[in-house]
């Protein structure tokens, strides 16, 4: 990430320097949340579906070893070559080896958050392999040399005029053109040429079915299918948590996924890959990269139930007003904030604090991950592991001392004085982050305690 040492608060500060843009970002994502609500409300069984999906995923995590083995053996019977990668580097090396063996130096890739997490593009480019992202949003951020800011809507932070400028520069669209219809048409022509000329295609995996050894890829654009069905080599990359037991379980997940993500009743394409096309090689890479460690953290393991719908981002009032890049990790928003510390607690120590714990994320989550409770729990772990700001630790200890001792608290002063001095957000000076943009409460004549003692009418 190119965000240097800036944390979520500092990056949000920069994002908030253009308030009109924050409003636009917030409204755009709220619009998606509103569509999600509407879609959810078309099904009276919505909450039952969430509960069912949650229980299926719980069950998978509790039996993951056997399901992975079952999936592997069934997929192999279907003619799919299975690879295992312990971490991001091994994943990237496997992809590279497959391409090398076929002497392929140019390829197309449809959306896969796993490959973002593994920084596959950078790795392959360093090794002389050209990767073209074919999801429109991902192609846009790729041209802009930025990471995606949202797992479902990769370029949601970009305005159409900026995209028009990029396309003018890279795809030769007319200067000043910013009509989404026109820009998308230009991308269609540009990317169709890539699909027709690239011999290898990478896709992500939304669901892998233990019982049948098949995997399902969901897109709206059809880019995964264009890539896969025109390629000699199809490489599918998945985290080990994407397994589901039975094909019939898809009915639950496909009903939830798109409704939660964008408010569509289902994605345009839900493609079930079971066997390679005649003459085609099909590879599937099962990636750990910290997942088994997360599985061992009892308080945090159920973050692995995530189906990457992005609903928690769309509903998050902080995400909407700070932008995806402020999370400085591949997966932004509330879910990213509970996944990232597992991989690197120090680097992502700020993320669990980038929340008011309002709980909206937990309520929209189609697999009922207790996101806001995990944010709270990560805070405790991060502080205990020593990644909190030392100044904050001192302030907290001082606060603890006073609040544990009624006489100290009482003697700390008249109404407002103790709170003003000690509650960290209420110190009245110009350097104070409360006072910059908010007035202080006016200290009253007397505290409630003082009033009560005088007027105690018991």
């Amino acid at each position: 990430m190119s965000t240097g040492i800036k944390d979520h608060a500092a990056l949000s500060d920069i994002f908030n320097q253009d308030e009109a843009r924050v409003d636009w970002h917030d409204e755009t994502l709220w619009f998606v949340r509103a569509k999600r609500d509407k879609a959810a409300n078309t099904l009276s069984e919505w909450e039952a579906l969430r509960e069912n999906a949650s229980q299926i995923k719980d069950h998978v995590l509790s039996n993951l070893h056997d399901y992975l083995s079952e999936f592997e053996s069934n997929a192999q019977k279907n003619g799919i070559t299975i690879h295992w990668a312990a971490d991001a580097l091994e994943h990237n090396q496997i992809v590279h080896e497959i391409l090398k063996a076929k002497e392929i130096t140019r390829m197309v890739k449809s959306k896969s958050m796993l490959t973002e997490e593994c920084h596959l593009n950078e790795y392959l480019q360093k090794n002389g392999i050209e990767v073209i992202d074919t999801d429109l949003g991902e192609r846009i951020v790729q041209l802009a040399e930025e990471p995606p800011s949202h797992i479902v809507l990769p370029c949601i932070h970009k305005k159409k005029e900026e995209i028009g400028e990029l396309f003018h520069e890279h795809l030769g669209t007319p200067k000043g053109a910013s009509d989404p219809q026109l820009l998308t048409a230009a991308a269609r022509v540009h990317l169709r040429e890539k699909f027709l000329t690239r011999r290898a295609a990478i896709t992500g995996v939304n669901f892998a079915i233990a019982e049948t050894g098949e995997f399902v890829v969901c897109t709206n654009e059809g880019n995964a299918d264009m890539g896969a069905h025109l390629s000699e080599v199809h490489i599918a990359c998945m985290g080990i948590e994407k397994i589901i037991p039975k094909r019939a379980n898809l009915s639950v997940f496909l009903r939830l996924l798109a409704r939660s993500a964008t408010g569509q009743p289902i994605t345009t394409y839900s493609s079930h890959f079971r066997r390679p096309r005649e003459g085609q090689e099909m590879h599937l890479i099962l990636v750990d990269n910290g997942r088994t460690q997360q599985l061992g953290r009892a308080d945090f393991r159920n973050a692995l139930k995530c189906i990457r719908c992005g609903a928690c981002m769309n509903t998050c009032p902080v995400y909407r007003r700070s932008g995806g890049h402020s999370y400085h990790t591949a997966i932004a928003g509330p879910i990213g904030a509970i996944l990232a510390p597992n991989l690197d607690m120090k680097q992502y120590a700020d993320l669990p604090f980038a929340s008011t714990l309002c709980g909206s994320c937990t309520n929209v989550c189609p697999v009922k991950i207790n996101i806001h409770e995990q944010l709270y729990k990560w805070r405790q772990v991060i502080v205990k592991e020593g990644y909190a700001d030392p100044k904050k630790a001192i302030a907290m200890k001082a606060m603890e001392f006073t609040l544990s001792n009624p006489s100290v608290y009482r003697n700390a002063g008249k109404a407002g004085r103790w709170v003003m001095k000690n509650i960290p957000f209420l110190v009245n000076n110009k350097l104070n982050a409360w006072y910059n943009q908010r007035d202080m409460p006016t200290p009253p004549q007397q505290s409630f305690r003082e009033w009560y003692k005088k007027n105690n009418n018991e």
Partner: protein
Amino acid sequence: MSSREEILARVKKNQPPLTVLPADLTALIQYPNPMEMFGIVLDGIGGTMYPVKDYEEMIGLIKTQFSNLPRVISTIPELKELTEKNWEGQDPHSYENVDVAIIEAHFGVAENAALWFTESLMGQRVIPFICQQLVVVVHKKDILSNMQEAYQQIADSSYGFGAFIAGPSKTADIEQSLVLGAHGPKNMTVFVLA
């Protein structure tokens, strides 16, 4: 130890005690007229439904809507006279200039206007994705209410590739503005045979 063994060993060590796989849900949404709901939902996602009484009526509509297009292909025997002969079995890239592909679906689903295809109905896997316009034929009796019914229908059928397709290829990646025809078909017409 290989990564495979290492990962599986760590999973075994770290996975929580076994919980049960929940029973399938019951009492799911049912529409009194699935075809009608299918049409409403399809319209909402950018497709168009035409109920037709027979192939003759369908052929008439196809002729008026898709005339003058050089490359029309189909896997449906009843439509042979309208479409290109011997197109199957070529290199998938060669279908890049297909204007219209007409294929049959196993069934449709009212709740989301998705239609289920396996590769045996596609001719080649790439066909429904690479064509400029997609036309689908489905029987009215094969329009189900919900996805649970859909997977009951699919059951353990053994396909190499299968897909639910719901409407034309689309994107809203640019400022959430919906654009049809991102990579694949720019529109989708569904004929529902009585």
